[in-house]
């Protein structure tokens, strides 16, 4: 085994032929013998080659329909590659399409035994692992229920639990993190860490770039069936975010809308990221300076209008609110026909994700007298690798001090650790 990759593919192609009108019955076949030629070919994988070393944690990322799952199914031997070769060294276990295919009318025990055998265990081994499987899935209380009475989360937990208990050298996992609650996700992460330490080979398909950068030694990016990158997970994650979000520059969130309010004495006509509006930047890297600018056209005489910016995250929560009224009390007077550019700059500490801008021009004063409110003018993505789960990524310094055996309350009173 030494020196051989755990899994390797060379020049793998996969095509699906999708009939436009699928003739399922013999009558249709007999009446339209030539119709068969009418099908579209979907070239799902194009010349994919790579090698995964034993003990490597390997991520496969890509947008929906990029061929990730098809590749995983080829690796798992569920699809036959049309061209090219795939090799593996070691026993393989799979977790694909959210599970190992349970029978809804049987209880957990039967299903676990059956699936263990399918994944390559002997019947005795499969039955002896049942306890561990059920324990990991935390389904002890529900083991007598038929699987059709399980929630979808319980299903997935059980399936994942079977997949990791078969002692495989190579584990293929498709999108396990997309389902399940936070506690189960954490459990998956613990398993990943443990397997990494045990030197198992894991191939992992996901959309979660945080997980890719956190666990993977290497990652691969697929786009339209082609491998467009392989290597350091950070680079791959960055490129994925660009491909996934960067192209949708004109994206407008229907909920934020473009309905305008205000008396129209001035109008925001354009909002953009960076210095140059023609760049159409849609990605703002995390931990770098970010500048957002707005072009305003004046239609009436105005004195010291205030311009404010609100950035909403995906959940419509205002994460950043900034206004010129704080820094520049006096913005000056503007005549009809004049233009002005307002810039907002800050160090980008936003959590990765999509943000929408709302720009508001108000008359000087209490800020309720709206001249123009322009929502949805800009939508951009913060690309980044740190995702702590908070709404912002503030650099936080941490420190641990040993306090001895006294209760912290004692210490607080005396003021000093003993």
């Amino acid at each position: 085994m030494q020196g051989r990759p755990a899994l390797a593919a060379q020049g793998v192609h996969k095509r699906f032929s999708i009939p436009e009108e699928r003739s399922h019955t013999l009558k249709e076949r007999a009446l339209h013998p030539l119709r068969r030629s009418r099908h579209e070919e979907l070239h799902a994988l194009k010349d994919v080659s790579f090698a995964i070393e034993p003990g490597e944690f390997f991520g496969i990322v890509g947008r929906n329909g990029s061929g990730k799952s098809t590749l995983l199914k080829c690796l798992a031997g569920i699809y036959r590659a049309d061209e090219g070769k795939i090799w593996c060294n070691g026993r393989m276990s799979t977790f694909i399409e959210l599970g190992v295919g349970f029978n809804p009318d049987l209880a957990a025990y039967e299903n676990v035994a059956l699936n263990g055998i399918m994944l390559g265990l002997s019947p005795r081994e499969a039955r002896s692992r049942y306890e561990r499987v059920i324990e990991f899935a935390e389904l002890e209380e529900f083991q007598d229920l038929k699987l059709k009475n399980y929630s979808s989360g319980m299903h997935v937990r059980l399936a994942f639990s079977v997949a990791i208990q078969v002692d495989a050298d190579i584990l293929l996992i498709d999108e396990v993190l997309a389902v399940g609650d936070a506690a189960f996700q954490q459990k998956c992460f613990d398993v990943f860490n443990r397997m990494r330490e045990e030197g198992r080979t894991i191939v992992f398909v996901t959309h979660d770039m945080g997980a890719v950068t956190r666990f993977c030694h290497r990652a691969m990016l697929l786009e339209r069936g082609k491998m467009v990158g392989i290597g350091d997970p950070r680079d791959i994650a960055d490129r994925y975010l660009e491909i996934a979000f960067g192209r949708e520059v004109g994206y407008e969130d229907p909920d934020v809308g473009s309905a305008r309010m205000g008396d129209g004495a001035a109008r925001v006509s354009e909002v953009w990221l960076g210095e140059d509006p023609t760049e159409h930047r849609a990605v703002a890297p995390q931990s770098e300076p970010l500048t957002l600018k707005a072009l305003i056209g004046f239609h009436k005489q105005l004195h010291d209008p205030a311009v404010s910016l609100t950035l909403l995250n995906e959940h419509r929560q205002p994460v950043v609110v900034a206004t010129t009224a704080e820094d520049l009390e006096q913005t000056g007077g503007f005549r009809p026909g004049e233009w002005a550019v307002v810039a907002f700059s800050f160090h980008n500490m936003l959590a990765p994700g999509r943000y929408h801008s709302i720009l508001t021009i108000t008359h000087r004063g209490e800020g309720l007298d709206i001249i123009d409110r322009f929502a949805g003018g800009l939508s951009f993505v913060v690309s980044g690798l740190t995702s702590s789960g908070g709404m912002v990524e503030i650099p936080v310094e941490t420190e641990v001090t040993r306090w001895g055996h006294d209760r912290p309350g004692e210490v607080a009173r005396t003021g000093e650790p003993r």
Partner: protein
Amino acid sequence: MSASGLSEPVTQTPPSPPEFPGEPIRGPRALDDSWSRFWHLAYNIARSEFKLKFFGSALGYLWQVVRPLLLFGVLYVFFVEIFHVDKAKGAAAEFYGAQLLGSIVLFTFFGEATGGAVRSVVDRENLVRKIQFPRLAIPISVVLLALFNLALNLVVVMIFAVLAGVRPMLSWLELPLIILMLTVLGTGVAMLLSALFVRFRDISPIWEVFSQILFYASPVILPAETVREKLAHGSTDQFLYHLYTLNPLVAIFQQFRHAMINHSVLSAGQLLGSWAALLEPLALVAAIFVVGFWVFNRAAPHIAEDL
């Protein structure tokens, strides 16, 4: 910064094949290298199906036995008490009831093995699409389940026969051979149908009608001797009779009736004229098995995509 990454060329050297023998992954197949895994799988699928089938019904397994008995009751009353299909044959008509029940049970096996196999692969879509395993395990599990039911039903048949007055015979030892022939035939048809159904969904109604025809074209109700008598004259009759005996179920059921119930019933060899003539239906059984396996084996790599 991320933007620079886009234009970089893919820096990956593909593995050089001569240095990487490994185990090639060829995609899904009908069978894989491990026979033990195949059998464990087929057996355990059949086992769980068996549990499922009778779970929650009060009489449970009894239904499996009662069903052929009910059919037997209806047919017996109708054809024997009213139409007297058994009367003309003299000694061969003895223990007609046991002959009828035996044939019904054998046909029930054939019907379960083939009719149950039709949808079997499609119905297990969630397995086929998610796990690599020898695909043939699915139709084989259907045959195994039917075989298990057959074994229990045959016990009922033999009890019935002994109660009716049949005495144990040395020819009972032929039973395994008869069952083997029937199983090979049923397996061949099961493989063929389950693979074809993935792409041609009208296999299901076609096979329903066809197995109805087979039921009446086999010596279940109508003794083969009667057919032989009726088709004894002229070349058309001869051709029809030849066609009738080509059906492997005729030879199998007939031999069962001869060897297990009543020696006065013609044996399969006598019915066909000579033992050599038996080669014809036997060759057909072998051909169906080979074609069935060939079709399934060809379809196996693509079943997951064609579903």
